[in-house]
């Protein structure tokens, strides 16, 4: 690591203040940040640890909405969310226990790793992502690989998930990292079906609109049979070709629908 100063604000306001300084960066669970620092791939002057801010902790469930404070760990989401089982189970399958006990939903969304799980849930649920400044709809939040619409120093404070009638997340593990090689989150709200795909695309998490239309009319896995995913924009690496990923998108979508 390069040298940096560490700050541990106790309130949201102190944190925002600390982050307004040039060269400051938020540190949540550190599951992405710490390895990045160790490899000397980032050199913030100040790390602002938000782990001690109680305003950023906790889950509440009211009237068909699950609200998760940004600093809540995957482990807590997995163990406490009741009204949205697909979301709880997604959180419970991120990484290993150590990762789940440290990593946070805010960190995951802000990082927007193209293979991360939460972005698929947020996009499929059209979650509202609230920051210290504004509320952003998930549809406007993810801007491609590791890019979001957050401004410098802007902090996610809370994420609100409307609870669907039915939902399921199918994650096909990348063999080494066990992030999603392809993950598909299907959520059904009345006749509206949203299908969000992570891991597959060079543009990051996306909605598979053909599948959504097909499923809106016929919510069964056979509705997907006739569809094909265009391999063109898929990721290709040592773990799978474009066409392999395109295949997985289809297979995982069908399985998610079947499991709903």
């Amino acid at each position, binding site marked *: *690591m390069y*040298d940096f100063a560490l700050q541990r604000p106790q309130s949201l306001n102190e944190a925002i203040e600390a982050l307004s300084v040039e060269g400051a960066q938020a540190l949540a669970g550190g599951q992405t940040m710490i390895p990045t620092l160790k*490899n*000397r791939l980032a050199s913030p002057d100040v790390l602002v640890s938000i782990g001690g801010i109680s305003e950023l902790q906790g889950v509440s469930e009211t009237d068909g909405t699950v609200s998760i404070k940004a600093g809540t760990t995957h482990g807590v989401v997995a163990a406490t969310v009741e009204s949205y089982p697909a979301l709880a189970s997604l959180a419970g399958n991120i990484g290993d226990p150590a990762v789940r006990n440290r990593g946070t939903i805010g960190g995951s969304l802000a990082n927007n790793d193209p293979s991360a799980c939460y972005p698929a849930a947020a996009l499929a649920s059209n979650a509202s992502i609230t920051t210290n400044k504004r509320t952003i709809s998930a549809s406007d939040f993810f801007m491609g690989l590791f890019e979001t619409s957050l401004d410098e120093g802007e902090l996610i404070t809370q994420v609100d998930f409307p609870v669907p009638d039915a939902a399921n997340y199918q994650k*096909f593990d990348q*063999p*080494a*990292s066990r992030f999603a*090689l392809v993950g598909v989150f299907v959520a059904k709200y009345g006749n509206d079906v949203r299908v969000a795909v992570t891991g597959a695309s060079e543009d990051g998490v996306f909605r598979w609109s053909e599948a959504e239309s097909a499923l809106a009319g016929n919510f069964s896995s056979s509705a997907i049979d006739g569809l094909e995913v265009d391999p063109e924009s898929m990721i290709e*690496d*040592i*773990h*799978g*070709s474009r066409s*392999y990923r395109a*295949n*997985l998108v289809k*297979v995982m979508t069908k399985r998610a629908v079947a499991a709903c």
Partner: protein
Amino acid sequence: MSDKGIGASSKRREDVRFLSGNGKYTDDINVRGQKYVHFLRSDVAHGKINGIDTGEAASMPGVAGIFTGADFAEVGGLPCGWQVTDRFGEAMKEPAHPVLAQGKVRHVGDPIAAVVADSLEQARDAAEAIDVDMEELPAVMDMKSAVAGGTLVHDELETNLCYDWGFVEENKDAVDEAIKNAHHVTTLELVNNRLVPNAMEPRVAIGDYDASNDESTLYTTSQNPHVIRLLMGAFVLQIPEHKLRVVAPDVGGGFGSKIFHYAEEAFCTLAARKLKVPVKWTASRSEAFISDAHGRDHVTKIELALDEKGMFQAVRTDTYANMGAYLSTFSTSVPTWLHGTLMAGNYKTPLIYVNVKAVFTNTVPVDAYRGAGRPEATFQLERVIDKAARELGMDPIEIRRKNFIQKEEFPYATPVALEYDTGDYVATMDKLQEIADLDGFEARASESRQKGLLRGLGINCYIEACGIAPSNLVGMLGARAGLYESATVRVNATGSITVMTGCHSHGQSHETTFPQVIADMIGISEDQVHIQHGDTSNTPMGMGTYGSRSIAVGGAAMVRATEKIIAKAKKIAAHLMEASAEDIELKDGSFSVVGTDKSVGWGDVCLTAYVPHNYPLDQLEPGLEETAFYDPANFTYPAGAYACEVEVDPETGKVDICSFAATDDFGNVINPMVVDGQVHGGIAQGVGQALREHAVYNEDGQLVSGTFMDYSMPRADDLPSFVVDHSCQTPCTHNPLGVKGCGEAGAIGSPPAVVNAVLDALNKGGYNVSHIDMPLSPSRVWSAING
């Protein structure tokens, strides 16, 4: 089964230390005043160094010294321990292997410079400030084109071919002829995938120098401290043994990768001498990926000729073996003597010819990795047999049984130079069929089908040559070292025993199993015996642990030394009881005079040896301590039969291992629980190779799978509960314990079982796929299914 001594599943005493966080590993050692090393490593695969400017770096905070190749120009290179002679009688090409790059870098990770500083971060900061003027050269990656010509890894050699080895060269024409005239020839081209060993503990080296008496100490993560002392002292740094101590304390796994003498060890030892401060280097995991010797990496074509009844007539195999950029310590022996000699397998194939071309490429050096050559031999042979069975419509078990060497044919001389002493391959196969419940396969397959999954069964056999090795034989074959083992058995005055062995335990449980042998021989309890290893200053010169040699060679040395102890103790007992030594019997820790009720206890005899008041001083020296060196007469030949069942998801290509059964003949077994553990670990690694692990280089020579984010290790939940059995025992005929060694078997026997199982699943499921190269990742299996 006994509850103590040989045959007992005594609990691993070292676990008390390891599981309570009290293991003492090299990185736990901190020498007062030590400084830290960071190596500046090449980030290009191949390049010419036009200049290195360390000016700015040298003036940075905390920097004690910066070294480049120029500082090591006078120092010897890292030696290769085995000289292979090629088909034409010429010695292999042996390029220099500098400690720090001399003018050129040859793989990503090749050390260019080293910074020694007060803290690791300061050393890293300074390394970033070193300015290297590097002219990048094209990377030599593909072995076949490397041999054809073009860019050279080592300009002075004028070729990228290290050797072209033929074995047995005199059989070549006969083999060609047999294949030409055969009823049926099955041909298979395959890749044995390159692996990164990934021991849990990364390598560490600490150099310490005591200028007052000119003594150097190296603490290092090694499987064989005496070998390092000899190689580094004599060939690299010219430090005589009495001025050089090498200590390898607790070592967190080696799998071969910690046999070799590495540049970092020589660097830390020399830097400590030059700077007169202790110097410590701890590899990061990323560094381990690009500096630990890799394993396997063969590209092979094998042909098996059969007659109309399915009897094997001849085997011909051509292999390109990747050496990487330099010759690591035992690299050259792996694809030759540890590989070609195993091509008979468990079968009576009369004619065999093996050709191996060893090739230099711009990659990390490749050397022995758990099994070393024998997994590569087993894989190609057992895969081609499976393919032949499918082509001929024969049952894969039947075709093997037909060709087995039969029990009564031992000792059996193979056409590839080995003489198997014992074995019973029919018995292990019978046992396998029983423990793997092969009769129940069809029912299980139909359950899988209901779930939309394809079930397959993979069977294979293996034989290995281990208990390495007869020194005179390996000397003839090019080894530049002896391969005996040593033990000193020191009986303490009150009867407890300290054994100093030249072997080294880094997961093999010597501290538990070696005492079981002594306890049995003398009749005292195991906890009265302590095993000391890993320090050249207090153990006799031995060759260390690899090649499943510790119990077969090191254990034998310990037995010999203990026999000397017992012989002497009997003389003492005879004196005490006023009898003749020939009449003394040792049983359950008590000496008695045959035919009388006179007896004297072990403890009394030991005390007498050290308090020799009533003692035949005119005939016998006091004390009770003996050393023995044991040089085996032959290799040992563990063999077995493995079965793997898999389910393949045809939609995703994902393979799940449903069950894995292993029957191994290890001869006599000292501790069944420890043997189970060794087999479990070996199978896990073999499954890793078959399904997951792969060191992938791109054409520029960058290691694409250079972290655990992309290099897939097997994890507990990827594996079923193994069913293992070692009740089929044909004891080794030439060592005193009748043991064969069990450390590598699992890793040798399991990859073909897994791959055969997946192909069986696909073919039974209607997909006509004849081979998939390892690792059988979901995407590869899916691609094979989808043409």
